[in-house]
């Protein structure tokens, strides 16, 4: 059996991806997962030549490469395959997605429910309102249903708490309300600019993370190499986005604890960071900043001056407030030992990003599969081991401070890099994508690992654009965190993960 490994942001011919039988495919997955450094970053299917083709991408964090392999099936409504989930739980969400899209049954899968009730799902007679929730019975057993609309300015999703008295036995999360048909739109909207705007809208709070994954895929296809300066600015934008959202999240943490001072101060601290984006590119969420092959908004010396000042002022006020928050007994009382997800559980469900690092699992694409300027200046991830709300709050606090330090080292290097000479060039918009090709891009957004895969057909049209937001894995972490916790601790647990509904529903 021949094997293939590629690097992050690499494009290859589709024909070079090994095609196994499902049984060899299964064995290969099992074999790779014996290595602890391996985890699956994407596994998806698409229509190909009147067949169904499934590509699996397993990243090796030690070797810094990605194993790519596939299997094919003839189209048939009644296909049954042995489930990978039985042995490797993290595959549960991929197999659910494949089942929803193509109707394939995975034998042994304990949890075969639709992920998002997509409009183009295989069986449209399966309705969202009939979602097969787990039932709980017993004398004091009861269920609490919340949503889709929640009591706040947040996205919709349905939570069903299975409770014994005040205690939550399990939380079942049913999503799909935000489904906008993004993956299909990638193929429908033919213009590169339209696809870039789509990427910016996958999850508006992770504009830089998702758009970067998209443009890196396109640059891999077009064999474009952007200058070091652009790479640096992209890393900087990604870290600024992380600082802004983490700070906003800490405000939300405090809000849910009714700790007014923390809520207001962190809320106010977020403003100058996103306003910096507005100075730079006109949009507080950095929409418009990341583009394929060039940088539309030069980073002027004036901007640099402003950023240096801003970071100094921000850092002082942030640390002052964070120190106070994380030393208050009334805050710690609610944070500590609340919503624990163990390291073993985290590994089992394949949690990524913050949801992994807060439980001692080192999973950070910036370090393991570096992209943009993380190739030049290595980033050392922050690791905590508690797995509780405290760890998730503290991780944000530390990551904000690390990111400030990282941006400072980027700013130091910036001067040594020559000004970017790449001009705005619309000819790129007319350029065809290479035919029958595959490309993968991984980035580390503030929530965690973002993976985009692109597949083109004979004519260079996008056959499949697969988006994976970190939330796809991490929603299960929230469900596990709630087990044996009081139902009143749900809001603080939910904020501590702050997962994306639209990123999951696409």
């Amino acid at each position, binding site marked *: 059996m021949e094997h293939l490994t590629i690097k992050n942001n690499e494009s290859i011919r589709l024909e070079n991806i090994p095609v196994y039988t499902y049984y060899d495919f299964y064995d290969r997955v099992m074999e790779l997962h014996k290595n602890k450094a391996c985890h699956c970053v994407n596994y998806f299917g698409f229509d190909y030549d009147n067949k169904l083709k499934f590509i699996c991408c397993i990243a090796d964090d030690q070797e810094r490469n990605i194993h790519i392999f596939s299997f094919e099936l003839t189209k048939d409504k009644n296909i049954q395959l042995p489930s990978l989930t039985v042995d490797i739980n993290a595959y549960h969400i991929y197999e659910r997605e494949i089942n929803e899209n193509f109707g394939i049954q995975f034998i042994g899968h304990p949890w075969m429910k639709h992920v998002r009730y997509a409009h183009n799902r295989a069986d449209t007679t399966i309705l969202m309102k009939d979602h097969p929730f787990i039932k709980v019975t017993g004398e004091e057993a009861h269920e609490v249903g919340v949503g889709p609309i929640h009591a706040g300015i947040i996205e919709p999703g349905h939570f069903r708490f299975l409770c014994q008295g005040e205690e939550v036995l399990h939380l079942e999360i049913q999503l799909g309300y*935000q489904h906008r048909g993004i993956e299909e739109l990638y193929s429908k909207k033919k213009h590169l600019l339209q696809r870039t705007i789509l990427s910016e809208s996958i999850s508006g709070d992770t504009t830089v993370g998702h758009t970067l994954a998209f443009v890196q895929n396109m640059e891999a296809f077009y064999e474009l190499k952007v200058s070091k300066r652009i790479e640096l600015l992209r890393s900087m934008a990604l870290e600024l986005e992380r600082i802004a959202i983490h700070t906003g999240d800490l405000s939300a943490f405090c809000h849910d604890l009714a700790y007014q001072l923390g809520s207001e101060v962190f809320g106010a601290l977020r403003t100058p960071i996103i306003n910096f984006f*507005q100075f730079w590119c006109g949009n507080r969420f950095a929409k418009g900043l990341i583009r394929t092959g060039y940088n539309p908004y030069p980073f002027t010396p004036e901007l640099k001056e402003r950023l240096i000042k801003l970071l100094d002022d921000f850092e002082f006020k942030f640390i002052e407030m964070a120190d106070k928050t994380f030393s208050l007994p009334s805050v710690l009382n609610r944070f500590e030992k609340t919503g624990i997800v163990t390291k073993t559980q985290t590994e089992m469900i394949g949690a990524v990003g913050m949801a992994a690092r807060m439980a001692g699992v080192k999973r950070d694409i910036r370090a393991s599969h570096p992209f943009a300027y993380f190739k030049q200046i290595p980033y050392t991830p922050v690791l905590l081991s508690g797995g509780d709300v405290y760890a998730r709050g503290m991780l944000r606090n530390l990551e904000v401070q690390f990111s400030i330090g990282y941006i400072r080292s980027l700013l130091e290097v910036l001067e040594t890099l020559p000004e970017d000479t790449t001009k705005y060039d619309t000819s790129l918009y007319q350029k065809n994508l290479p035919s029958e090709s595959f490309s993968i891009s991984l980035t580390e957004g503030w929530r965690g690992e973002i993976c985009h895969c692109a597949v083109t057909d004979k004519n260079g049209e996008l056959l499949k654009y697969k988006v994976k937001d970190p939330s796809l894995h991490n929603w299960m972490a929230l469900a596990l965190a709630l087990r044996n916790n009081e139902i009143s601790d749900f809001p603080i647990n939910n904020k501590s993960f702050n997962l994306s509904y639209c990123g999951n529903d696409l």
Partner: protein
Amino acid sequence: MFEVFKIWKHQGKQYIPDLTKPVLPTSFFGRPEISSKPCAEGCSACKDICPTHAIKLEPMTLDFGKCVLCNECTRVCTEEKISFTSDYKTATNERSRLIVKEGETHPITINEVLVRKEIRSYFGRSLKLRQVSVGGDNSCEWELGATGNPNFDFGRYGIDFVASPRHADGLVITGPITENMAEALQICYDAIPAPKIIILVGVDAISGGIFAGSDALNRTFLDKYTADLYVPGNPPHPLTFINGVMEMIKLKKGWF
């Protein structure tokens, strides 16, 4: 306790005293203007590149309710016909006012004739809103949340967001309205006591934005009801929302 006082002191005054006065940096993409100088012969570059087909030619118009503010039209134009001002007061109650025409430089305003009488008499001193995200990408939601932060503090005028539709006077919609949320949106609207208003926030809600044409959407809700306020932007700045609402209800400040 001493530390708390120190934090207060370092934070200083955060609030914007007059929410109608701030000036946004020139880099901000606000109300577009189209100059009346002639286009280059046979050129349709801006129309061709617009990702949401917001631009029409002869005469040239730009639909700000469709514009995702990518700024590509100004880049491809050789004659500098289109420009974006930093004017953030772009919310209006009449959809057609969002369509900016060649040579127009006047601000986008509320059409007084179309404002229902009860809106001002009922909500002029207090307005409680229920926000529903129907496919919103969470950027509009963050910006609406920001209207209550220490900088904007919209709540000072008795205007804020409430948890239950039964406590609300109106519905704020973000996102292109997905099929999977269509029913929940209707239920929420029905639960709000009359008289009630509808505010569409963001380009996705107003026109579908980049999602227009997706089969996963169901925008029939908007065929049934007319919005009382359109707040354009991708996402709109909190000040766009705040000033739009203040104008719509003709906010009465103070006791008289």
